[in-house]
Each structure stands twice: as structure tokens, then as C-alpha cells.
């Protein structure tokens, strides 16, 4: 019986999610201008759901102080209070309101992940495009340096570097950005390599165009699709790395709310059959899945696949 109920709930959740995706897509199509509406019409329901979820996360992150019933760090009750009318999701190991921390966590975790990914992308794609266009010794130098960095497993390397430079938010952003930039570099270089040999790039070179214009006008627009798709994926990885580091105690430091460390702090509750510590983990999973839905759609569009 329990299995069947579980199955029913699963089906209901999927149906609900798809319905939400459909409603969101219809709404977006009606409000956006003509050109954009045409793009959205090709959007599958999964991507619609993903976009809706991302939008909700962003709203929550931006308006956290307005939404959260209590402050992020204030102790408002006893430890591990169960769910009730005042503390909708109970309290954590120090007696702080769980729901409020979950909401503030969106701001910290998502914000830092976005900053890190953006930095990794700027660094990785600029260097990757440069290596592909200039070639020769610059390409060799950058590629070999990247090879060396990539030879060490990412998480261990991050732990190592953070132990050396000390834990702070800025340091963490820089370390993860550098490590992830190596992956972006390889993709950007590979994509640009295929574009550099096109006749239009040759024509631009023969016209006497400078390096900057060559990269920004001729190559980058044509490399955009795979890079955007990679951005989504990379965002998920960075997100997971931050949560993992926080779980290990080297990431975002207390008392700042962060989903990774929230799982760790409240882990003991799991032995009592309470699902509260799984909520931050669920928030991470939902965002990751949502981003991937959108990325899939973009990849599909970029590669020109049909059906």
C-alpha cells in the first residue's frame, strides 16, 4: 500500500510540475514581444518548469528580508523544535528558525555560485578564445598550464588551496573560479578552434581586423550556444562544490545561512525520522534539476536537433 501511495504522489508531483511549466510557458508567450515569443513556443514543458523555478529562486534570493518571518541568525526558540504555526519548519540545532535560514540560504548559496560561475566563465572563455586565435606558443603555454591544474581532482585541490589561503567568501570564490575556469577554457578553445578555420575568419584576418574585433565579432557570437549551455551546467557544478565545501566546514562560515552547512548542522535529526535536514538538500537538488532542464533545451536548440 505504501508503495502505491508513493507512486501516486510521484505521479502527482510530476503532473503538477508539468502543469506549472505549461502555465508558465503560456504566460511568458503572451507577455513577451513577438520575436521572443516564437523562441518560447519551442520550449518543452520541462524547460518551462525549470525557468519558473529559477525565477522563484531569484525572487526569493532578492527579497529574502521581506519574505523571511525571522532574521537569519537570531535564536528564536529551543533547539530542534518540531513544525508548528510559528516556526513553520521548526528550528535548527541552535534554535534558529529553519524557514528563514532556508530563505536566506538561497541568497548566499545562489549568489555566491553565480558570482563564481561568472568569474570562471570570463576567465576561461577569454583565455580559451585567445589560445585558439593566437595559437603557437601562447596556446601551448595556456593549454599546458590548464592540463597541470586539471591533473589534480577538483575537490581535493580546492580543499588544499583553501587551507593554504584561508577560508573566506572571497577566497572561496576565487579558488573555485580558477579551478572551474580550466574546464571552460578547454571547451571555449575547442569550439573556437572549429570556428577559426572558417572562411569568414580568414576573410576578416585578410581585411586586417585586430585581435579584439576578431574575437568579439567573428568568433564569440558563433561560439555562444555551447558556451551558454556550459554556463548552466557549470553553475550546477559550482553550486554543488560550494555546498560540499560548506558541508566539510571550509565553505561559507557560520552564522551565515547556507544550504550545505544546514544539512550538516541538522543531520542528527535524520536518525529520529525527521525530514527537516533534507529540505536544504532538496532545495539544492530542485535548482540543479531546473537549471539542467533549461540547459537541455538550449543545447537542443543550439545543435539543431529535431525530435
Amino acid at each position, binding site marked *: 500500500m505504501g508503495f502505491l501511495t508513493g507512486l501516486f504522489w510521484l505521479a502527482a508531483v510530476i503532473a503538477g510540475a508539468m502543469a506549472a511549466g505549461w502555465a508558465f510557458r503560456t504566460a511568458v508567450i503572451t507577455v513577451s514581444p513577438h520575436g521572443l515569443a516564437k523562441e518560447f513556443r*519551442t520550449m518543452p514543458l520541462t524547460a518551462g518548469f525549470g525557468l519558473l523555478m529559477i525565477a522563484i529562486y531569484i525572487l526569493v534570493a532578492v527579497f529574502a528580508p521581506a519574505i523571511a518571518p525571522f532574521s537569519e541568525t537570531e535564536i528564536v526558540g529551543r533547539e530542534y523544535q518540531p513544525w508548528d504555526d510559528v516556526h513553520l519548519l521548526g528550528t535548527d540545532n541552535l534554535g534558529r528558525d529553519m524557514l528563514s535560514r532556508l530563505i536566506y540560504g538561497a541568497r548566499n548559496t545562489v549568489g555566491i555560485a553565480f558570482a563564481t560561475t561568472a568569474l570562471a566563465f570570463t576567465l576561461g572563455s577569454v583565455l580559451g578564445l585567445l589560445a585558439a586565435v593566437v595559437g603557437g606558443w601562447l596556446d601551448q603555454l595556456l593549454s599546458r598550464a590548464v592540463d597541470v591544474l586539471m591533473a589534480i581532482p577538483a575537490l581535493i585541490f580546492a580543499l588544499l588551496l583553501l587551507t593554504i589561503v584561508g577560508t573566506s567568501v572571497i577566497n572561496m570564490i576565487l579558488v573555485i573560479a580558477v579551478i572551474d575556469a580550466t574546464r571552460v577554457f578547454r571547451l571555449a578553445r575547442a569550439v573556437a578552434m572549429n570556428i577559426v578555420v*572558417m*572562411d*569568414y575568419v*580568414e*576573410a*576578416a*584576418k*585578410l*581585411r*586586417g*581586423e585586430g585581435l579584439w574585433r576578431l574575437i568579439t*565579432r*567573428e568568433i564569440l*557570437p*558563433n561560439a555562444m550556444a555551447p558556451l551558454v549551455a556550459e554556463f548552466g551546467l557549470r553553475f550546477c557544478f559550482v553550486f554543488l562544490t560550494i555546498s560540499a565545501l560548506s558541508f566539510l566546514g571550509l565553505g561559507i562560515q557560520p552564522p551565515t545561512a547556507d544550504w550545505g552547512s544546514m544539512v550538516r548542522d541538522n543531520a542528527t535529526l535524520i536518525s529520529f525520522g525527521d525530514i527537516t535536514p533534507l529540505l536544504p538538500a532538496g532545495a539544492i537538488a530542485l535548482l540543479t534539476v531546473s537549471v539542467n532542464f533549461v540547459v537541455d533545451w538550449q543545447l537542443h536548440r543550439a545543435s539543431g536537433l*529535431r*525530435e
Partner: protein
Amino acid sequence: MTDTNKEVLLSMKGLRIEGRADEEWTEIVKGIDLTLHKGEVLGLIGESGAGKSTIGLAAMGFARDGCRISGGEITFDGIDLRAASEPERRGLRGKRIAYVAQSAAASFNPAHKLIDQYAEAPVQHHVMSRSEAEHDAVELYRRMQLPYPEEIGFRYPHQVSGGQLQRAMTAMAMSCRPDLIIFDEPTTALDVTTQIEVLAAIRDIVEQFDTAAIYITHDLAVVAQMADRIKVLLRGEEVEEADTRTMLDAPTQDYTKSLWAVRSFTRPTQPPVEKGVTPVVSVRNVTAAYGTINVLKNISFDIHARRTVAVVGESGSGKSTAARVITGLLPPRRGEILFNGEALPPDYRKRTREQLRQAQMIYQMADTALNPKLKIRDLIGRPAQMYLGLQGKALTDRIKDLLSLIELEPNDYIDRVPSELSGGQKQRIGIARALAAEPQFIICDEVTSALDQLVAEGILKLLDRLQGEFDLAYMFITHDLATVRAIADEVVVMKEGLVVEAGPKLEVFQPPHDPYTELLLSSVPEMDPDWLTHLLEEREAGRAGADVEPAGH
């Protein structure tokens, strides 16, 4: 040659095929009737987008991804292909109906030896055992006149030349002795000299085994050699169908007549260049190499203002390399390039902006030569902005002038991106981009070879008109001698990095020829259905360049 008493092998009635584009189904084949008798060769001819290949595939009961057969009947030897189950159809394919694709290089699996791929179909269909198939392969390779038939099967696809690969492909299609073979542009990607060998081999083998064939091509002269009957298609509809001879001598429809007339454009003969005039571009004793292999060996030629020099040769003869040396992409090992009498720096990076402006290039594939993300306004406007410093309204006016020059309506096209243009229109944009720099000299690298004949004709006329208006000098790289006849003033024949013959068009095209020029000239198919037969007889008798090996063998 048509024998209507013979049994009907394949018939299509009211065939309709739809293709999916932008979430909608549009009809691409609109009710075609087709009857093919046993042992008969039917030529399907038309421009790109006429639906030739789609019909060819439909003869196997197959539709490409994103296409569906939406109406009509296809009957092959009494079997209704539309009603047949997929396993049934699969049983026919390769065994009773075979397919030879345009690019043999792309159709062979590069990881397996030729003979392994040959044996695949007969073994799969239980026609022969593996050892029988191998034995049979050697026999067919011999009949296809492949060199070393005993050993060639044990090579990988990249180890044999393009023409040999295409013949091996035809032999492979023959392996199960099918009743019907579909040839989809089998010689389009080949040089003229190689094309002859493949055509002769295909014709022989089809006759020997009395196989029926559908021969798809856009080249009229080729189809005239191969087919008993010709069907002309236009945008998925039949224009007319008749015996080859009737069709060539007396086409009834206007469209067919216009196809036939395409090769009529000829540029009037120009007076010879006066002595002592400095040529615009002068290639002096240039030797150039990729790595250690010399691709150009001490070549020299001049190009004068208002003159077109056609550089002709097979693939691998070094004609494109010559263009790369002139533009500075490949600095030569020895020799120099003079521009109006002054030596240009060998590397394009060392040339001044003015020197770069004076020499422009138009590419073969307009698809890859135009940045797909830029609007026409930016594509054409950039050279004008960069070299001539035009801005704002002056720039827009200049772009509109250029668009009118290439016969495109300025306001309609200025804000489009290349994907919203047809092949011929893209090539016109390529021309406009070259003109925008106001150069003295333009290199045209196979500019018409990717285009349909009617469209190519328009491009050649446009280039000719622009030359007169702007006193341009052209270097016209091509392997198509019909194009050379149409547009050139002077011809440079190249083979394996050497200039074999050079001079005014009339001189090069009149005997006595260099033997290689003779071979090239005699290999250009003519619209006479007996041309191939006569040529082969002549070569047998030891004339018409018989003793010259084509380049790349």
C-alpha cells in the same frame, strides 16, 4: 534504346513527400509519376531543391529524417513498398535495390577495409558466403577497371583516390546483383578527368548486368551520356520526360530550354594587352610549400587590369595555394608577388591596410565565407567603414548602393542574416563585400561551383558587368572548363604545382595543345549522347590525351 516491351520494374504513381520545417509539413515532392523498365537507365535532372534525391530514396521506400511519404504508390517488382513492413523493405535494400551516394569518401566507413565493407551486404542477405563475396569483389573490381583488383580491396578508404573510391562504391552496390541502382550525383565531387573513368565504368557495368538505374544529377552533359530517358524536375514537379535524344534535340518546355541554353554566355574577346603596361598583379617565380612538400614549383603569371585570368587544374594542382600566396596567407619560399610593379610583403600581417584593400577575395562556399551571426549591413558595411572611413548615413547609403549593384533590393535585404538568403544571393553578398573595399584586384575561388547552373550563370554575368564598371582584374580559380570558356581572357593551366600552359584563351583552347591541356579539354562532357562513346574510342586509338596520367594518380 528504350524497350517498352520489357517488364516494368519500378513504378511510382502520384508520389507525394512532405518535409518538416518550422513545425509545419510542406510538400517537397508534388505528385510524381515514374515508370522504370528492367535494364533501363532513367536520368533525373533539376536544380537543388527539385526533389531529385528525395525521389531517389523513395524508390527504396525510404524517407530521410524529417520527411515522410504522404501519398501515392511505389511498386517495385510487384511489391507495394509503402505497405511492406520495415523488415521486408530492409530485405530489399542492398539486395535488390542499391544506392550509390554522391560522396563515396563520406559513405565508406573509414575504419574498415574496402573488401570487408563489400562483403557486408551479400553475407548479411545470405546471397554469398564470406569467401565467395571476397572472390566476387576482386572480379567486380576488375570489371570496374580498378588498378590492382587483387589487392585494392585490402586498403582502407583513405588509401585510394576519390575516383577509385567512387568506383569501389559502385562495385559494392553491385555485390548482390541488384535489379535497380540509384546513383545520386556519383561524379559531382570528382575532377573532369576522373569523372570520365567513373562514368565509363558505371555505364559498362550497368550494361553488363542489365541493371536498371536511376541516375540523379544536375549536369545535363553527364546525364546525356548515361540515361535512356530523362525526366526534368522543378520544385518537386515534373516538367517533362522524354527519350534522351528527343529531350536534347527538341525540348518542349521553356524551363528545359533555359537549362539547355545555360552554357551560352560568353564574354567578348578582349584586345591583347599592350606591351609595357605594368600588370596589376604579377606572380614571379613563386615556390611555396606546406611543411617540406613543395606545392607550387617556380610559377609565374601576370594579371592585367580589366582582364580575367582563369587558373585551371584538378584538385591538388596548387591553384588555391597560388591564391593563398597572393593574399599573403602562405608566404612563399622563393619568389615574390608584385602589385602594380611593387613587391608586396610576403606575410599578410606585414601588409599595409591599403595593400590589403586592393586585393579582395570571393570564396567558393558562401555559407562558410559569411559570418552567420552578422546582418548584411555589417557584412558589407565593415570593409567600407574600415578602409574608407564611412560612418552613419554615408555608410548606409554606400551599403544600399552596393546591394543595388549586386541586384538585390536594398531595403529588403539590408537587415537580413545570411541564413535568410538563397545560395546565389549569399554569393552575391560575398561579391558585394569584396567590392565594398573598392579593390583593383579580386580573386574568385571556385565561386560558381557550389551553385546551380542557372544561378551560376547570373553570377558570371554580374562579375563580368562589374569588371567593366570598375576596371577590375580577376583571378578566376576553377576546375570547370565551361566557366573558363565563358569568362576568361587568359588561361593558366596547372598540374602538380607547375604551370603547364598559359596564354590567351583562344590560343590555349586551339590546337596544338600541351598533352595535359588536351586531356583536360577533351574530358569536359558535351551535350551529345554519343560523346563518351566517341571519346573512349578515340582514347583507345591513342589520341585525345590518352597517354597522360591525370594528376593525383
